[in-house]
Each structure stands twice: as structure tokens, then as C-alpha cells.
């Protein structure tokens, strides 16, 4: 072990569904307090890997540990150290936002569930919506609530499985801000994404999962070196539609 401790260690992990080999020997090390993006196309095995790491699924071969606990043999200890935000916002629609937060706080056996809930509502800009049923929330609000629920009890490792899939650009920016804030507090974050921009903006390291193996792993600078040297070219920079969209609604909201 080096100076910085390893939060997540995956070695030779394999998993197949019937004939289909989804993970074919995955190796991955994530340092304490870093944000690592697991990049891959649909069906690359990202969710399978996250589900094994969060003790929801058993691997066929290989080992994986989180905070030093083996995910197969010490599942209960792993669950104490993690929280999972799945691909779809796992919130209870019939409860209010505040009740959802209190539910998780009680299940984590925290003393003052009501205060924990109110703090998080404030932190995630959901105070006004707190007393409303989640069924009335927008996609971005659900995701923010979902992430807020994952932070209760301050688990040292957080898994975010495609946290911004299906969100509009504004909601995506909100989620990015939440993730950055998390890392600033020293939480280790492993997030999966199929958006290159997301990986580029958030991650300290990027691991590319392709056909069941990690085929590249490093910082953005490392990965850039894998390409032939850049050659200079003059291009007129057009704003992207996303930039225009955000600029217009930004102006709208200020006025």
C-alpha cells in the first residue's frame, strides 16, 4: 500500500449471465477521497460492477474490497461504508422529500432524523419542496433528493450509477455541483457514465470499461498522451446548443 490508502480494490473480477460474459477480468484501484469515472457504452458492464461492489450481486471469480472489507465475505461491513445511488432515482414517491430523508436516517440509526433531513433539504435546495410528495418532483429534484439520501450517515464511499442519465442540462449541472461538493468533503466517489464530458469535468481519474475489461485507466492527461501529439488548427468556435440554452434560461431567471 502506498501513501494514499486504497478505498476500492478490484482484482480479476468476472461475472457472466448464462453464456454472456459481462465482466471478463476487471482490475481497478480507487484511492481514498478521489473521484473516479467509469466510462463505457451501454452494456459495457458498468452497472454489473457497481452492483457487485455494493453487495447486491455475487461475482463468479476474482476479488473486490471496499475500505478493506471483502464484498463477498464481509458484506455487512461493506454496507456500513458505502451508499449506492442507482441508475433510476430510488426515492419513495408516496412519501414527502423530508420523509424520504428521515426514513434513511432512521435506517442508519442516527439520533436526530428530523434535523438530518432538514439540513440536507437546505443543502440540496429542496426546503420548499420538502413537505410535498415526491411524485410531484421534477427529474432533477428527484435526483438531488436521491443523492441527498445517499449522503446520510456520511459513508466514506459513494457509488453513483449514471447519475445524470435522463436529466436536462440544468439538472445535470446541479448534480455535478453536488458530486464536487461530496468529493470536497473527502468522500471517495466511483461514478459510472456514458458521457465523456461528465467524466472530463468531474473525475480525478478515468477508467474505460470496454467488453468486460478496463482498457485504459489514468488521469485525463494520461489518457490524452495515448493519442498522437496534437497539431494546431484554426477553427471558428461556435457556441453549442447547450451553451445557448443555458445562457437563455439563465437570462430568463435573472430578469
Amino acid at each position, binding site marked *: 500500500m502506498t501513501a494514499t490508502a486504497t478505498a476500492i480494490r478490484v482484482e480479476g473480477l468476472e461475472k457472466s449471465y448464462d453464456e454472456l460474459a459481462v465482466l471478463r477480468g476487471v482490475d481497478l484501484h480507487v484511492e481514498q477521497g478521489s473521484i473516479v469515472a467509469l466510462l463505457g457504452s451501454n452494456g459495457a458492464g458498468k452497472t454489473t460492477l457497481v452492483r457487485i461492489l*455494493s453487495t*447486491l450481486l455475487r461475482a463468479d471469480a476474482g476479488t473486490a474490497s471496499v475500505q478493506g472489507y471483502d464484498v463477498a465475505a464481509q458484506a455487512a461491513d461493506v454496507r456500513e461504508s458505502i*451508499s*449506492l445511488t*442507482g441508475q433510476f432515482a*430510488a426515492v*419513495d414517491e*408516496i412519501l414527502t422529500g423530508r420523509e424520504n430523508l428521515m426514513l434513511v436516517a432512521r*435506517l442508519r440509526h442516527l439520533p436526530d432524523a428530523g434535523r438530518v433531513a432538514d439540513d440536507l433539504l437546505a443543502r440540496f435546495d429542496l426546503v420548499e419542496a420538502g413537505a410535498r410528495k415526491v411524485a410531484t418532483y421534477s427529474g432533477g429534484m428527484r435526483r438531488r433528493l436521491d443523492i441527498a*439520501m445517499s449522503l446520510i450517515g456520511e459513508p466514506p464511499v459513494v457509488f453513483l450509477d449514471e447519475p445524470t442519465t435522463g436529466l436536462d442540462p440544468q439538472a445535470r449541472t446541479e448534480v455535478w455541483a453536488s458530486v464536487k461538493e461530496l468529493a470536497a468533503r473527502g468522500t471517495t466517489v466511483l461514478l459510472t457514465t456514458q458521457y465523456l464530458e461528465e467524466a472530463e469535468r468531474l473525475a480525478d481519474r478515468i477508467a474505460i470499461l470496454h467488453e468486460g475489461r478496463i482498457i485504459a485507466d489514468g488521469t485525463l492527461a494520461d489518457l490524452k498522451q495515448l493519442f498522437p501529439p496534437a497539431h494546431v488548427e484554426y477553427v471558428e468556435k461556435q457556441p453549442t446548443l447547450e451553451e445557448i440554452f443555458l445562457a437563455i434560461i439563465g437570462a430568463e431567471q435573472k430578469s
Partner: protein
Amino acid sequence: MSATHAIGDTVVLTGRSMRHITRSVDTIITTAIMPVAMMLLFVYVFGGAIDTGSVAYVNYMLPGILLMTVASGVAYTSLRIFNDVQGGVFERFQSMPIARSSVLWAHVLTSLVANVISLAVVLAVAVVIGFRSGASVLAWLGIAGVLVLFTLGLTWLAIGAGLSAKTMEGASAFAYPLIFLPFISSAFVPTETMPTVVQAFAEHQPVTPIVNTLRALIEQQPVGTDGWLAVAWCLGILVVAHALALAAYRRRSA
């Protein structure tokens, strides 16, 4: 994981799913409305043509109606589990440091409470249309015991169905044959009036001894061997359904 946590977690999670019921009272009403309609239909339309001897027809058919109520009630249990799995809430709980069994037990307790409320509604309507019984407190405890045991068995069936269903319709479809089962039993007409083959089926399926037991308790008659048969069927269903549910549960993480 300590035992006190397991109980505490179950209490917290039961509180959550009970809110699902108190905030959608319609599920209780829908559960009760079909058996109540069936009861009115049989008492006021068909009942006059059915000879049940000295027993008032409403008393005669109430046990079957109560079993039907439970069978339609557990369809919602299955639906609640299915929605938890589908929405990811189930996986969220599974990845948290809580007693894993408490997630299922919370649904079991909620199902039990919801069905008891529906049964009380149906019973109240029965009293309004003339149901009377001189059964002792002990006999009523027996009736309650059999109904609770039956509800538990069907609830675990519902949990297995909800865990393994692929669609919302599939999650509740298992309940339809159960709702239908009382028709081919001693619940509404004496089995002697049925053709031989149907009669053979009716007399060897679980609803008949359970109905006969409840009816005997209501009418202050000796329960006889039907009592043991009823309890054996209920326990058998419970054991098998529980095993099926746990198998469906394990398949989710294989």
C-alpha cells in the same frame, strides 16, 4: 447485525409501507368492494335458490367471502413489492447496513394489517345485511387465527410473485386463480350438488376445509377433522410460499 436492529429496522420500514396504505385508502376499498358485491349478489340473487338447511345463507357464505377478500388483498402486497423492486427502492435498502430480512418482513406486517382492515369492512357489511352469530370469544379467536394463518400464507405467495414479476400485471395475476378458488368449494353451495369430478376437486382443495372450519366455528358446531385439515393446509401453503419467496429473493443476487 443485532436482533434489536432487525426489529427496529422492521418497525421503521413497516411505518413506511403503512403510509402507502393510509395515503391510498382506495386500495382498502377496492380490496373490500369485490367481495362485498359478491356477497350482496349471492345473498339477494342466488342465495334464495340454494338450500343450506337450517343455516342462514349469509352465515353460510361469509367464510368464502372472507377468503376471497384476503385473496384480492394480497394482490396489492405483490404490487407494493414489485414497485419497490422496479423503482430501485428495494436495492437501496439492500445496499444499506440494515437487517435484510426486515425489508420483506415490513411488507408481510403491512399486508397483514391491510387485510385485517379489509376483513373488518366486509364483516361490518355482513352484519348490516343480517349476519349474526352466537359464537364464543374462543370460537372468534379460532376464526381470527385461521384467517391470519391463511393471510400469512397468501402474503408470502404474493411476495414471491412481486419479487419475480416482470410486469405490473404479472405481479398481481397470481391472485386471480386464488380469488376464483372459493367458487369450486363448499363456500357457496354444498359440494354434494356438484358433478363427481368437480366434487372430487372441491373436496380436496384447501378452501373447502378452511371454509368448513370457519362455518362450524360461526355456527357453534363441532369442527371435526376439517379443523386439522384447515390448519395443515394453511401451514403447508405458508411453508411452501415462504420457500418460494426466499428462492425468488436469492435469484435477485445470483
